[in-house]
Protein backbone atom coordinates (compact mmCIF):
# COMPACT_ATOMS: atom_id res chain seq x y z
CA UNK A 1 0.00 0.00 0.00
CA UNK A 2 1.29 3.38 -0.95
CA UNK A 3 1.63 6.38 1.30
CA UNK A 4 -0.54 9.45 1.13
CA UNK A 5 1.99 11.51 -0.82
CA UNK A 6 2.05 8.93 -3.55
CA UNK A 7 -1.68 8.84 -3.61
CA UNK A 8 -1.70 12.66 -3.75
CA UNK A 9 0.70 12.75 -6.66
CA UNK A 10 -1.37 10.18 -8.50
CA UNK A 11 -4.53 12.16 -7.80
CA UNK A 12 -2.99 15.38 -9.12
CA UNK A 13 -1.68 13.59 -12.20
CA UNK A 14 -5.09 12.14 -12.96
CA UNK A 15 -6.72 15.51 -12.38
CA UNK A 16 -4.35 17.23 -14.79
CA UNK A 17 -4.93 14.53 -17.40
CA UNK A 18 -8.67 15.03 -17.13
CA UNK A 19 -8.34 18.78 -17.48
CA UNK A 20 -6.19 18.37 -20.56
CA UNK A 21 -8.55 15.80 -22.05
CA UNK A 22 -11.51 18.10 -21.46
CA UNK A 23 -9.78 21.00 -23.19
CA UNK A 24 -8.98 18.81 -26.17
CA UNK A 25 -12.59 17.64 -26.35
CA UNK A 26 -13.85 21.23 -26.22
CA UNK A 27 -11.49 22.20 -29.02
CA UNK A 28 -12.71 19.30 -31.12
CA UNK A 29 -16.33 20.27 -30.58
CA UNK A 30 -15.64 23.89 -31.41
CA UNK A 31 -13.64 22.96 -34.51
CA UNK A 32 -16.59 20.88 -35.70
CA UNK A 33 -19.43 23.15 -34.68
CA UNK A 34 -18.08 26.42 -36.04
CA UNK A 35 -17.85 25.22 -39.67
CA UNK A 36 -21.23 23.55 -39.30
CA UNK A 37 -22.80 26.76 -38.02
CA UNK A 38 -21.19 28.78 -40.79
CA UNK A 39 -22.50 26.34 -43.37
CA UNK A 40 -26.00 26.58 -41.94
CA UNK A 41 -25.84 30.38 -41.96
CA UNK A 42 -24.67 30.51 -45.57
CA UNK A 43 -27.33 28.04 -46.71
CA UNK A 44 -30.02 29.94 -44.85
CA UNK A 45 -28.91 33.20 -46.40
CA UNK A 46 -29.09 31.64 -49.85
CA UNK A 47 -32.37 29.74 -49.51
CA UNK A 48 -34.56 31.88 -47.26
CA UNK A 49 -34.73 34.96 -49.53
CA UNK A 50 -35.92 32.79 -52.39
CA UNK A 51 -38.61 31.27 -50.19
CA UNK A 52 -39.81 34.70 -49.08
CA UNK A 53 -39.86 35.98 -52.67
CA UNK A 54 -41.90 33.00 -53.75
CA UNK A 55 -44.38 33.61 -50.95
CA UNK A 56 -44.60 37.29 -51.91
CA UNK A 57 -45.34 36.42 -55.53
CA UNK A 58 -48.08 34.05 -54.47
CA UNK A 59 -49.61 36.66 -52.17
CA UNK A 60 -49.50 39.33 -54.84
CA UNK A 61 -51.16 36.98 -57.32
CA UNK A 62 -53.89 36.16 -54.82
CA UNK A 63 -54.45 39.80 -54.00
CA UNK A 64 -54.47 40.92 -57.59
CA UNK A 65 -57.76 42.59 -58.47
CA UNK A 66 -59.55 42.08 -61.76
CA UNK A 67 -59.20 45.79 -62.39
CA UNK A 68 -55.51 45.45 -62.92
CA UNK A 69 -55.71 43.07 -65.83
CA UNK A 70 -53.67 45.16 -68.14
CA UNK A 71 -53.53 48.66 -69.39
CA UNK A 72 -53.88 47.94 -73.05
CA UNK A 73 -57.61 47.42 -72.80
CA UNK A 74 -58.36 50.23 -70.40
CA UNK A 75 -58.00 53.04 -72.92
CA UNK A 76 -60.61 51.50 -75.18
CA UNK A 77 -63.08 50.25 -72.69
CA UNK A 78 -63.03 52.79 -69.95
CA UNK A 79 -66.49 54.06 -70.70
CA UNK A 80 -66.95 55.47 -67.21
CA UNK A 81 -65.46 58.81 -68.23
CA UNK A 82 -67.12 58.94 -71.61
CA UNK A 83 -63.95 58.01 -73.39
CA UNK A 84 -65.64 56.26 -76.25
CA UNK A 85 -63.41 55.98 -79.28
CA UNK A 86 -64.88 57.60 -82.37
CA UNK A 87 -64.01 57.82 -86.05
CA UNK A 88 -64.83 60.41 -88.67
CA UNK A 89 -67.62 60.00 -91.25
CA UNK A 90 -65.40 58.77 -94.07
CA UNK A 91 -63.87 55.99 -92.07
CA UNK A 92 -67.20 55.15 -90.63
CA UNK A 93 -68.78 54.71 -93.99
CA UNK A 94 -65.90 52.54 -95.23
CA UNK A 95 -66.12 50.22 -92.29
CA UNK A 96 -69.88 50.13 -92.41
CA UNK A 97 -69.72 49.24 -96.10
CA UNK A 98 -67.20 46.53 -95.30
CA UNK A 99 -69.49 45.10 -92.71
CA UNK A 100 -72.39 45.24 -95.12
CA UNK A 101 -70.41 43.49 -97.81
CA UNK A 102 -69.68 40.69 -95.43
CA UNK A 103 -73.30 40.38 -94.43
CA UNK A 104 -74.50 40.45 -98.07
CA UNK A 105 -72.15 37.68 -99.07
CA UNK A 106 -73.37 35.37 -96.36
CA UNK A 107 -76.74 36.31 -95.07
CA UNK A 108 -77.52 34.49 -91.89
CA UNK A 109 -81.23 34.13 -91.28
CA UNK A 110 -80.75 33.06 -87.71
CA UNK A 111 -78.83 36.24 -87.03
CA UNK A 112 -81.04 38.33 -89.33
CA UNK A 113 -78.11 39.48 -91.46
CA UNK A 114 -76.10 40.67 -88.48
CA UNK A 115 -73.03 38.71 -87.38
CA UNK A 116 -73.48 38.15 -83.73
CA UNK A 117 -71.11 35.16 -83.63
CA UNK A 118 -68.01 37.19 -82.94
CA UNK A 119 -66.92 36.84 -79.36
CA UNK A 120 -66.45 39.96 -77.41
CA UNK A 121 -63.65 40.02 -74.87
CA UNK A 122 -65.69 41.24 -71.97
CA UNK A 123 -63.11 40.16 -69.37
CA UNK A 124 -60.75 42.96 -70.36
CA UNK A 125 -63.49 45.49 -69.75
CA UNK A 126 -65.35 43.67 -67.03
CA UNK A 127 -64.76 46.27 -64.38
CA UNK A 128 -65.80 49.17 -66.62
CA UNK A 129 -68.89 47.46 -67.99
CA UNK A 130 -70.58 46.60 -64.72
CA UNK A 131 -73.26 49.01 -63.57
CA UNK A 132 -71.88 52.39 -64.36
CA UNK A 133 -71.86 52.24 -68.14
CA UNK A 134 -74.12 50.01 -70.16
CA UNK A 135 -72.57 50.89 -73.46
CA UNK A 136 -69.89 48.30 -73.02
CA UNK A 137 -72.17 45.67 -71.55
CA UNK A 138 -72.48 42.03 -72.58
CA UNK A 139 -75.52 42.81 -74.74
CA UNK A 140 -73.30 44.30 -77.37
CA UNK A 141 -73.01 41.90 -80.27
CA UNK A 142 -70.39 43.21 -82.55
CA UNK A 143 -66.98 42.56 -84.00
CA UNK A 144 -64.39 40.95 -81.82
CA UNK A 145 -62.83 43.52 -79.59
CA UNK A 146 -59.07 43.54 -79.87
CA UNK A 147 -56.71 46.17 -78.60
CA UNK A 148 -56.10 47.32 -82.17
CA UNK A 149 -59.79 47.51 -83.19
CA UNK A 150 -61.70 50.73 -82.55
CA UNK A 151 -65.47 50.43 -82.39
CA UNK A 152 -66.75 52.65 -85.29
CA UNK A 153 -70.44 52.44 -84.46
CA UNK A 154 -71.18 54.40 -81.40
CA UNK A 155 -74.37 56.34 -81.81
CA UNK A 156 -73.71 59.99 -82.59
CA UNK A 157 -75.37 62.55 -80.45
CA UNK A 158 -77.62 63.75 -83.30
CA UNK A 159 -78.88 60.31 -84.15
CA UNK A 160 -82.57 59.62 -83.90
CA UNK A 161 -84.98 57.19 -85.38
CA UNK A 162 -88.64 56.48 -85.50
CA UNK A 163 -90.55 53.36 -86.31
CA UNK A 164 -94.15 52.68 -87.09
CA UNK A 165 -95.27 49.08 -87.06
CA UNK A 166 -98.25 46.83 -86.77
CA UNK A 167 -101.57 46.64 -88.47
CA UNK A 168 -104.80 48.54 -87.93
CA UNK A 169 -103.96 50.39 -84.71
CA UNK A 170 -100.35 50.98 -85.48
CA UNK A 171 -97.65 51.27 -82.86
CA UNK A 172 -94.99 53.87 -83.09
CA UNK A 173 -91.91 55.24 -81.38
CA UNK A 174 -89.88 58.37 -81.89
CA UNK A 175 -86.51 58.39 -80.12
CA UNK A 176 -86.23 62.16 -80.52
CA UNK A 177 -89.35 62.82 -78.44
CA UNK A 178 -89.54 59.49 -76.60
CA UNK A 179 -93.21 59.07 -77.43
CA UNK A 180 -94.21 55.45 -77.45
CA UNK A 181 -97.62 54.51 -78.75
CA UNK A 182 -98.85 51.02 -78.30
CA UNK A 183 -101.90 51.35 -80.52
CA UNK A 184 -104.14 53.94 -82.00
CA UNK A 185 -107.06 51.58 -82.27
CA UNK A 186 -108.58 51.89 -78.82
CA UNK A 187 -111.50 53.45 -77.06
CA UNK A 188 -109.15 55.76 -75.25
CA UNK A 189 -106.06 55.99 -77.40
CA UNK A 190 -104.43 58.33 -74.92
CA UNK A 191 -104.19 55.45 -72.51
CA UNK A 192 -101.84 53.70 -74.88
CA UNK A 193 -99.33 56.50 -75.08
CA UNK A 194 -96.28 56.75 -72.82
CA UNK A 195 -92.78 58.11 -72.81
CA UNK A 196 -89.78 55.89 -73.31
CA UNK A 197 -86.22 57.17 -73.26
CA UNK A 198 -83.94 54.47 -74.51
CA UNK A 199 -80.67 53.93 -72.69
CA UNK A 200 -77.44 54.82 -74.46
CA UNK A 201 -76.69 51.13 -74.99
CA UNK A 202 -80.07 50.61 -76.57
CA UNK A 203 -79.58 53.66 -78.76
CA UNK A 204 -76.21 52.28 -79.79
CA UNK A 205 -77.74 48.92 -80.55
CA UNK A 206 -80.40 50.48 -82.77
CA UNK A 207 -77.75 52.62 -84.39
CA UNK A 208 -75.69 49.55 -85.19
CA UNK A 209 -78.71 47.78 -86.59
CA UNK A 210 -79.53 50.69 -88.81
CA UNK A 211 -75.92 51.08 -89.90
CA UNK A 212 -75.84 47.47 -90.83
CA UNK A 213 -79.05 47.93 -92.74
CA UNK A 214 -77.65 50.86 -94.73
CA UNK A 215 -81.01 52.53 -95.21
CA UNK A 216 -79.77 54.67 -98.07
CA UNK A 217 -79.80 51.65 -100.33
CA UNK A 218 -83.53 51.20 -99.90
CA UNK A 219 -86.19 53.13 -101.77
CA UNK A 220 -88.46 55.41 -99.90
CA UNK A 221 -91.42 53.22 -100.81
CA UNK A 222 -90.44 49.66 -100.26
CA UNK A 223 -91.94 46.25 -100.20
CA UNK A 224 -89.77 43.59 -98.63
CA UNK A 225 -91.80 40.74 -100.06
CA UNK A 226 -91.26 39.82 -103.69
CA UNK A 227 -94.13 40.07 -106.09
CA UNK A 228 -95.88 42.30 -103.60
CA UNK A 229 -97.02 39.37 -101.53
CA UNK A 230 -99.95 40.44 -99.41
CA UNK A 231 -101.86 39.28 -96.33
CA UNK A 232 -105.03 40.20 -94.54
CA UNK A 233 -104.69 42.13 -92.41
CA UNK A 234 -101.59 43.77 -93.84
CA UNK A 235 -98.75 45.24 -91.83
CA UNK A 236 -97.11 48.65 -92.01
CA UNK A 237 -93.49 49.35 -91.33
CA UNK A 238 -92.20 52.87 -91.61
CA UNK A 239 -88.60 53.30 -90.57
CA UNK A 240 -87.04 56.75 -90.36
CA UNK A 241 -83.40 57.43 -89.61
CA UNK A 242 -82.18 60.90 -88.66
CA UNK A 243 -78.51 61.78 -88.38
CA UNK A 244 -78.10 65.47 -88.06
CA UNK A 245 -79.96 67.09 -90.93
CA UNK A 246 -79.99 63.86 -92.94
CA UNK A 247 -83.21 61.94 -92.89
CA UNK A 248 -84.03 58.69 -94.57
CA UNK A 249 -87.44 57.04 -94.48
CA UNK A 250 -88.25 53.56 -95.66
CA UNK A 251 -92.00 53.16 -95.89
CA UNK A 252 -93.41 49.68 -96.26
CA UNK A 253 -97.14 50.13 -96.03
CA UNK A 254 -99.67 47.39 -96.24
CA UNK A 255 -97.20 44.63 -96.67
CA UNK A 256 -97.69 41.05 -95.74
CA UNK A 257 -97.90 40.45 -92.03
CA UNK A 258 -94.70 38.42 -91.85
CA UNK A 259 -91.13 39.04 -90.86
CA UNK A 260 -89.78 36.38 -93.18
CA UNK A 261 -89.09 36.77 -96.84
CA UNK A 262 -87.03 35.16 -99.50
CA UNK A 263 -85.53 38.44 -100.59
CA UNK A 264 -82.22 39.03 -98.78
CA UNK A 265 -82.55 42.77 -98.74
CA UNK A 266 -86.11 42.47 -97.62
CA UNK A 267 -85.13 39.96 -94.97
CA UNK A 268 -82.49 42.33 -93.67
CA UNK A 269 -85.04 45.12 -93.51
CA UNK A 270 -87.65 43.00 -91.76
CA UNK A 271 -85.09 41.61 -89.30
CA UNK A 272 -83.87 45.07 -88.45
CA UNK A 273 -87.38 46.31 -87.83
CA UNK A 274 -88.20 43.24 -85.75
CA UNK A 275 -85.14 43.69 -83.58
CA UNK A 276 -85.98 47.34 -83.00
CA UNK A 277 -89.54 46.34 -82.14
CA UNK A 278 -88.24 43.77 -79.65
CA UNK A 279 -86.16 46.44 -77.94
CA UNK A 280 -89.17 48.72 -77.68
CA UNK A 281 -91.68 46.11 -76.56
CA UNK A 282 -89.35 44.63 -73.95
CA UNK A 283 -89.20 47.90 -72.06
CA UNK A 284 -91.00 48.39 -68.77
CA UNK A 285 -92.85 51.35 -70.19
CA UNK A 286 -94.38 49.20 -72.92
CA UNK A 287 -95.34 46.46 -70.51
CA UNK A 288 -97.11 48.93 -68.28
CA UNK A 289 -99.41 49.97 -71.10
CA UNK A 290 -102.85 48.30 -71.12
CA UNK A 291 -103.67 45.28 -73.25
CA UNK A 292 -105.07 45.59 -76.71
CA UNK A 293 -108.80 45.97 -76.95
CA UNK A 294 -108.95 44.29 -80.34
CA UNK A 295 -107.47 41.12 -81.77
CA UNK A 296 -105.44 42.76 -84.46
CA UNK A 297 -103.66 45.60 -82.79
Amino acid at each position, binding site marked *: *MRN*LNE*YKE*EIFRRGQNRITARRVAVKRVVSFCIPLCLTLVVCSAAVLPQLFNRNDIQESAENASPESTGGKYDAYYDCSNGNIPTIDDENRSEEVNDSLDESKDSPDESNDGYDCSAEVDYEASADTSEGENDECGPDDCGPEHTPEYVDPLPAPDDFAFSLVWNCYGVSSYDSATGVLVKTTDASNPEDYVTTLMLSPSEITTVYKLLNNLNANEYPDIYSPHPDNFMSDPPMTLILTVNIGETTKTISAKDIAYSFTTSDPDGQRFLTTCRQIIEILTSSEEWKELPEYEHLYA
Partner: protein
Amino acid sequence: MDNGACSYRRFLDGDESAFDDIMNELFHSLMYFINRYVHDFHAAEDIAMDTFADLLVHRNRYNFKVTLKTYLFMMGRSRALDYLKRKRTISFVELNEAIAVESDEKTLEEIVITDERKRIVNGAITKLTEEMQIAIHMFYFENMTYAEIARVMKKNEKQVDNLLYRAKKELRAILDKDGELL
Protein backbone atom coordinates in the same frame (compact mmCIF):
# COMPACT_ATOMS: atom_id res chain seq x y z
CA MET B 1 -16.08 18.76 13.19
CA ASP B 2 -17.09 19.57 9.64
CA ASN B 3 -15.55 16.51 8.05
CA GLY B 4 -13.32 18.49 5.65
CA ALA B 5 -15.62 21.29 4.58
CA CYS B 6 -13.48 23.95 6.18
CA SER B 7 -10.34 22.49 4.68
CA TYR B 8 -11.94 22.37 1.27
CA ARG B 9 -12.96 25.99 1.55
CA ARG B 10 -9.37 26.85 2.24
CA PHE B 11 -8.35 24.78 -0.73
CA LEU B 12 -10.78 26.67 -2.94
CA ASP B 13 -9.32 29.91 -1.68
CA GLY B 14 -5.94 28.74 -2.97
CA ASP B 15 -4.38 26.96 -0.02
CA GLU B 16 -2.84 23.86 -1.59
CA SER B 17 -1.88 22.43 1.80
CA ALA B 18 -5.56 22.17 2.65
CA PHE B 19 -5.87 19.34 0.15
CA ASP B 20 -3.29 17.41 2.11
CA ASP B 21 -5.43 17.81 5.21
CA ILE B 22 -8.44 16.51 3.32
CA MET B 23 -6.54 13.49 2.09
CA ASN B 24 -5.14 12.74 5.53
CA GLU B 25 -8.61 12.89 6.97
CA LEU B 26 -10.74 11.14 4.41
CA PHE B 27 -8.77 9.17 1.82
CA HIS B 28 -8.29 5.90 3.70
CA SER B 29 -11.83 5.95 5.04
CA LEU B 30 -13.14 6.40 1.56
CA MET B 31 -11.00 3.63 0.21
CA TYR B 32 -12.12 1.26 2.96
CA PHE B 33 -15.73 2.19 2.34
CA ILE B 34 -15.40 1.56 -1.38
CA ASN B 35 -13.78 -1.76 -0.62
CA ARG B 36 -16.99 -2.78 1.12
CA TYR B 37 -18.64 -2.66 -2.31
CA VAL B 38 -16.03 -3.90 -4.70
CA HIS B 39 -14.18 -6.33 -2.38
CA ASP B 40 -11.06 -5.50 -4.30
CA PHE B 41 -8.35 -3.46 -2.63
CA HIS B 42 -6.69 -2.27 -5.80
CA ALA B 43 -10.01 -1.36 -7.39
CA ALA B 44 -11.00 0.48 -4.23
CA GLU B 45 -7.70 2.30 -4.31
CA ASP B 46 -8.18 3.26 -7.91
CA ILE B 47 -11.78 4.38 -7.39
CA ALA B 48 -10.80 6.45 -4.36
CA MET B 49 -8.11 8.21 -6.33
CA ASP B 50 -10.55 8.89 -9.15
CA THR B 51 -12.99 10.29 -6.65
CA PHE B 52 -10.43 12.70 -5.27
CA ALA B 53 -9.35 13.60 -8.80
CA ASP B 54 -12.95 14.53 -9.55
CA LEU B 55 -12.95 16.70 -6.46
CA LEU B 56 -9.80 18.36 -7.78
CA VAL B 57 -11.06 18.91 -11.35
CA HIS B 58 -14.66 19.90 -10.64
CA ARG B 59 -14.06 22.12 -7.70
CA ASN B 60 -17.40 23.94 -7.81
CA ARG B 61 -19.63 20.89 -7.82
CA TYR B 62 -19.47 20.57 -4.04
CA ASN B 63 -22.03 23.07 -2.75
CA PHE B 64 -21.40 22.59 0.99
CA LYS B 65 -24.97 21.45 1.59
CA VAL B 66 -23.64 18.18 3.02
CA THR B 67 -20.37 17.40 4.70
CA LEU B 68 -17.38 16.81 2.45
CA LYS B 69 -17.14 13.29 3.82
CA THR B 70 -20.74 12.59 2.82
CA TYR B 71 -20.08 14.10 -0.62
CA LEU B 72 -16.99 11.94 -1.16
CA PHE B 73 -18.76 8.80 0.07
CA MET B 74 -21.64 9.50 -2.31
CA MET B 75 -19.28 9.82 -5.26
CA GLY B 76 -17.29 6.83 -4.15
CA ARG B 77 -20.37 4.65 -3.87
CA SER B 78 -21.52 5.68 -7.38
CA ARG B 79 -18.14 4.88 -8.86
CA ALA B 80 -18.03 1.59 -7.01
CA LEU B 81 -21.39 0.55 -8.35
CA ASP B 82 -20.32 1.60 -11.85
CA TYR B 83 -17.22 -0.50 -11.44
CA LEU B 84 -19.30 -3.49 -10.41
CA LYS B 85 -21.51 -3.04 -13.47
CA ARG B 86 -18.53 -2.93 -15.79
CA LYS B 87 -16.90 -5.88 -14.07
CA ARG B 88 -17.74 -8.89 -16.26
CA THR B 89 -15.16 -11.52 -15.60
CA ILE B 90 -13.82 -12.92 -12.40
CA SER B 91 -10.23 -11.86 -12.17
CA PHE B 92 -7.83 -14.61 -11.35
CA VAL B 93 -4.93 -13.44 -9.29
CA GLU B 94 -1.68 -15.14 -8.73
CA LEU B 95 -1.33 -16.54 -5.26
CA ASN B 96 1.52 -14.18 -4.49
CA GLU B 97 -0.55 -11.20 -5.44
CA ALA B 98 -3.48 -12.47 -3.42
CA ILE B 99 -1.34 -12.62 -0.33
CA ALA B 100 -0.10 -9.10 -0.97
CA VAL B 101 -3.61 -7.83 -1.42
CA GLU B 102 -4.71 -9.44 1.76
CA SER B 103 -1.87 -7.82 3.63
CA ASP B 104 -2.75 -4.42 2.16
CA GLU B 105 -6.32 -4.85 3.28
CA LYS B 106 -5.20 -5.66 6.76
CA THR B 107 -3.02 -2.58 6.75
CA LEU B 108 -5.90 -0.45 5.58
CA GLU B 109 -8.11 -1.94 8.25
CA GLU B 110 -5.55 -1.10 10.82
CA ILE B 111 -5.38 2.46 9.58
CA VAL B 112 -9.12 3.00 9.47
CA ILE B 113 -10.24 0.96 12.45
CA THR B 114 -7.98 1.78 15.27
CA ASP B 115 -10.23 0.50 17.98
CA GLU B 116 -9.78 -3.19 18.75
CA ARG B 117 -13.41 -3.72 19.53
CA LYS B 118 -14.40 -2.21 16.24
CA ARG B 119 -12.09 -4.60 14.54
CA ILE B 120 -13.94 -7.46 16.17
CA VAL B 121 -17.24 -6.04 14.94
CA ASN B 122 -15.70 -5.52 11.55
CA GLY B 123 -14.93 -9.19 11.39
CA ALA B 124 -18.51 -10.02 12.33
CA ILE B 125 -20.28 -7.74 9.88
CA THR B 126 -18.87 -9.66 6.97
CA LYS B 127 -21.58 -12.16 7.66
CA LEU B 128 -24.29 -9.56 7.11
CA THR B 129 -25.80 -8.47 3.82
CA GLU B 130 -23.99 -5.86 1.81
CA GLU B 131 -26.46 -3.11 2.65
CA MET B 132 -26.23 -3.86 6.34
CA GLN B 133 -22.45 -3.89 6.13
CA ILE B 134 -22.42 -0.48 4.47
CA ALA B 135 -24.87 0.99 6.95
CA ILE B 136 -22.98 -0.43 9.96
CA HIS B 137 -19.65 0.73 8.50
CA MET B 138 -20.82 4.29 8.01
CA PHE B 139 -22.62 4.50 11.32
CA TYR B 140 -20.27 2.60 13.52
CA PHE B 141 -16.87 3.17 11.93
CA GLU B 142 -17.26 6.49 10.21
CA ASN B 143 -19.53 8.05 12.84
CA MET B 144 -21.94 9.37 10.24
CA THR B 145 -25.47 10.44 11.10
CA TYR B 146 -28.65 8.81 9.87
CA ALA B 147 -29.17 11.70 7.47
CA GLU B 148 -25.70 11.37 6.00
CA ILE B 149 -26.03 7.60 5.68
CA ALA B 150 -29.40 8.09 3.97
CA ARG B 151 -27.83 10.57 1.58
CA VAL B 152 -24.98 8.25 0.65
CA MET B 153 -27.16 5.16 0.24
CA LYS B 154 -29.95 7.11 -1.43
CA LYS B 155 -32.52 6.03 1.10
CA ASN B 156 -34.62 7.92 3.60
CA GLU B 157 -33.78 8.06 7.25
CA LYS B 158 -36.53 5.66 8.19
CA GLN B 159 -35.14 3.02 5.91
CA VAL B 160 -31.67 3.57 7.31
CA ASP B 161 -33.10 3.25 10.80
CA ASN B 162 -34.74 -0.04 9.96
CA LEU B 163 -31.61 -1.27 8.25
CA LEU B 164 -29.40 -0.47 11.21
CA TYR B 165 -31.88 -2.00 13.62
CA ARG B 166 -31.87 -5.28 11.76
CA ALA B 167 -28.13 -5.14 11.30
CA LYS B 168 -27.52 -4.64 15.00
CA LYS B 169 -29.91 -7.40 15.82
CA GLU B 170 -28.10 -9.84 13.61
CA LEU B 171 -24.71 -8.65 14.77
CA ARG B 172 -25.75 -9.24 18.34
CA ALA B 173 -26.78 -12.70 17.46
CA ILE B 174 -23.52 -13.33 15.65
CA LEU B 175 -21.38 -11.93 18.35
CA ASP B 176 -23.30 -13.74 21.07
CA LYS B 177 -22.90 -16.87 19.11
CA ASP B 178 -19.23 -16.26 18.82
CA GLY B 179 -19.09 -15.45 22.45
CA GLU B 180 -18.22 -11.80 21.97
CA LEU B 181 -19.98 -8.80 23.48
CA LEU B 182 -20.79 -5.71 21.44
